């Protein structure tokens, strides 16, 4: 009985493999995308690409870390063509784990600025998010604000709201401070921030803004992207919270405001490399970039694309031109320093 059932199992397996293979051969116009982004806007953008190019997109959505782990385990059998993440650090990690390959395209190189892509063209930024200070317009005079470094000043004691150190955007900000100021200064900075906490870090970026509205603190460090979501929320309380604060872009007098990207890279064993590059070119095209800006409140990387009305209302700003590869390289260091100063 055991033998018979084994034979049945193997037959089923063989039949299914056969099917899968022939399916792949018949229809080579596919593209498999591993993505950490799960926005409804993306779905529309992908669909438009499918209609335009006739290439079908298979989407696997999970956390970037899980996707990287998955690609690593799958090895050269991995169906992934592209890895799309919401921060540069994960792409750097994927590159260092030998999971990506160079995608040389004149179109991409000409559109994506040098500091927003890998020097060997292993990955490219698609959209930018700025990590800014937002403040309670009734309690804070913006002339008091200047830099990230200034937030450790005693005058902000018990007034500063920020989420936990487990969050990738805080880790990237810390990495940029290490890159710009060195490890020791960065550690002191983190300790100074902890010292000024209005409360122990909890919740997400939106919760920090809501806490300002509730008077738990007076200023917060958050991503512009979430503020956009908050102001356009369907929940009236969230809208109220979003409108109660004003954006301040720090470090305008020196290196510029810290930015992060949502970025993409071609998988090392991509079965459909050409399609993958076509897709990246499409994503950085003017129309798609404007869509990202208007529907998802992300800053475009394509200089020709205009930002949305909301993003414009916050004003233009000087961004930190630090090459984003640095953020990935220093990410772990950042986490270790956070732990050492007990930033929860």
């Amino acid at each position, binding site marked *: 009985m055991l033998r018979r059932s084994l034979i049945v199992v193997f037959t089923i397996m063989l039949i299914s493999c056969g099917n899968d293979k022939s399916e792949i051969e018949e229809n080579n116009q596919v593209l498999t995308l591993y993505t950490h982004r799960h926005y409804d806007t993306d779905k529309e953008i992908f669909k438009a690409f499918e209609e335009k190019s006739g290439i079908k997109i298979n989407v696997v959505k999970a956390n970037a870390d899980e996707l990287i782990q998955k690609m690593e385990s799958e090895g050269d059998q991995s169906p992934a063509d592209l890895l799309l993440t919401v921060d540069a650090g994960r792409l750097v990690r994927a590159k260092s784990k030998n999971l990506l390959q160079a995608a040389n395209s004149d179109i991409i190189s000409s559109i994506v600025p040098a500091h927003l892509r890998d020097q060997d063209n292993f990955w490219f930024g698609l959209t930018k998010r700025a990590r800014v200070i937002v403040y309670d317009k009734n309690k804070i005079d913006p002339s008091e604000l200047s830099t990230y470094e200034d937030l450790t000043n005693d005058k902000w004691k018990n007034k500063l709201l920020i989420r936990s150190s487990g969050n990738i955007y805080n880790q990237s900000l810390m990495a940029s401070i290490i890159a710009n100021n060195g490890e020791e200064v960065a550690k002191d900075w983190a300790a100074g921030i902890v010292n000024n906490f209005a409360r122990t870090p909890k919740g997400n970026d939106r919760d920090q803004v809501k806490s300002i509205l509730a008077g738990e603190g007076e200023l917060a460090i958050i991503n512009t992207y979430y503020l956009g979501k908050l102001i356009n929320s369907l929940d009236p309380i969230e809208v*109220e919270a979003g409108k109660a604060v004003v954006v301040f872009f720090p470090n305008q007098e020196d290196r510029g405001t810290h930015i992060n990207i949502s970025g993409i890279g071609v998988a090392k064993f991509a079965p459909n490399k050409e399609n993958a590059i076509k897709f990246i070119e499409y994503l950085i095209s003017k129309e798609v970039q404007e869509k990202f800006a208007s529907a998802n409140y992300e800053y475009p990387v394509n200089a020709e694309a205009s930002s949305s009305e909301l993003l414009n209302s916050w004003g233009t700003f000087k961004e930190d031109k630090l090459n984003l590869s640095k953020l990935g390289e220093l990410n772990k260091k950042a986490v270790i320093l956070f732990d050492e100063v007990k930033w929860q």
Partner: protein
Amino acid sequence: MRFDLKHFKRDLNQWSLYTVAISLFIAIPVFTIIFHLFNGKGEMWDHIVTYFLLDYVLNSIALLFGTGIICFSLGTASAWIVTKYDFPYRKLIEWLLFMPLAIPSYIVAYSYVGLLGNGGTFIRFLNMFGIPIKKIEMMNIYGLIAVLSFSLFPYVYAGTRAMFKSYPNSIRESAYLLGASEIRYFFSVALPLASPAIIGGLFLVFMEVLNDYGAAKYYGINTFTTGIFRTWTALEDIQSSIYLSALLVVLALFILAIVKWFRGKKSYALKFNNEDKTKRYNLVGYKKIYLIVVFIPILAGFVFPVFQLLIWAVQTFEVIFNYALFSIVIQSVLVALFTALIIVLIALLLIYFSRWSILKTPRFFPKIATLGYVIPGAIIGIGIIRSSNSIIVFFDTYLDLKVGYLFYGSSVVLIYAYIFRFLAVGYNSIEANTLKLGKHLEQTSYLLGIDKFVTFVKIDLPLLRNSIISAFVLVFIDTLKELPLTLILKPYDLNTLAVKAYEYAEDERVAEASIPALLLISTIVILITLINYKKSKTN
């Protein structure tokens, strides 16, 4: 359990072999993880020990104690009221007390912040009456304990209620005749008799608490499970996260050992009722106040969270709702039904094959196969990807077959992962009932010349029917709510409600998550109602 070599050949039968083979096949991820433990400690291990380990241990213990005490109180007290007293809508209330299980605990966590956080629904309500309160802080360990308790107490309620119902009326009557007060009867007779069920329920609560990721992360509490993720993702040290998982497993096994010890100590020879023939007293006069005991858990665990979800659903309905969601409902249900079916089947095979095995050692193997319940989903995911990868490489190298698409393009691996993760849920609840059945019935059947299979079909299966159905339902609910494994192992074209809800919540769009969450909850509610209806009809 000394190895008896002399009789090995005589006592070895095919069932021993099947038990071992099935168990080992299911337990592959355990071995992958154990194998990784031998790779030495990860580079960040010392860092973790210095800054976090104590935190993880203390927080996890505090959570276990807190939820343990609250779940015990809510679960046993509500079970007591519904079995001892009769009152209007009692049947409905008995059923509503199960309902908190239908909501994933991380959704409950979010909805409580929506109710009680800054500008929360309940806060605004209080403000309308001139109570100038800004918020009720939920996002701390007490809040987490409360939220987890509200969503997990039905595990205690379910078993305890079944136990209370099965007491012959004579016990209660004789206790009263001996002059015991009601309270004394509850504490010195009813509770101790129900202790196996209570402890079994608490064990499930503890495992869920240890495995919780979403709620603890949102509330900013460092636990083993959040630590495992953090070590893996932020500290980039998968080796240390496997170490942490191993510690978590040790903690879980420790709890399991205590449970075994308790259960072993207490066994009562009582002839229990199989059906509910309990005489109930009418709840009259001041005693109506007892109803608070059943209303609090229903409100806290089900009505309040669902109320908040409904408010969000109304706000986001136009943007989020579309008919494609129903195809997601169908996909989720099909996957969960299939998984539940297979798990019940495998649980039955393992239980009976190991019973039929004369050798004693193979009977130990199913325990290994049920270890998945104590291992965090993400770690199982890693274990499974690594093991299936070895299989793919094997096929590629030796047989020149590319099976990668079979593994990553279909639900085979995902369902295997569910089986490993949830086998214990099905196995334990059915096994407990087979133990209750005892061996005499099937031995009698053997002596009447009936073979094992026919005995199983004619005797065990009908007698286990109810426990098989409840095992099926429990696995179905767990699978439908499952998140980390589904995220990492699902094929592209499969979508589940839990994943959909998570995608919004992950992006800080909690309100938008409410519609998939509500669909998930209603699916479970409908299933439970159908089964209850069917049960009451056949009884």
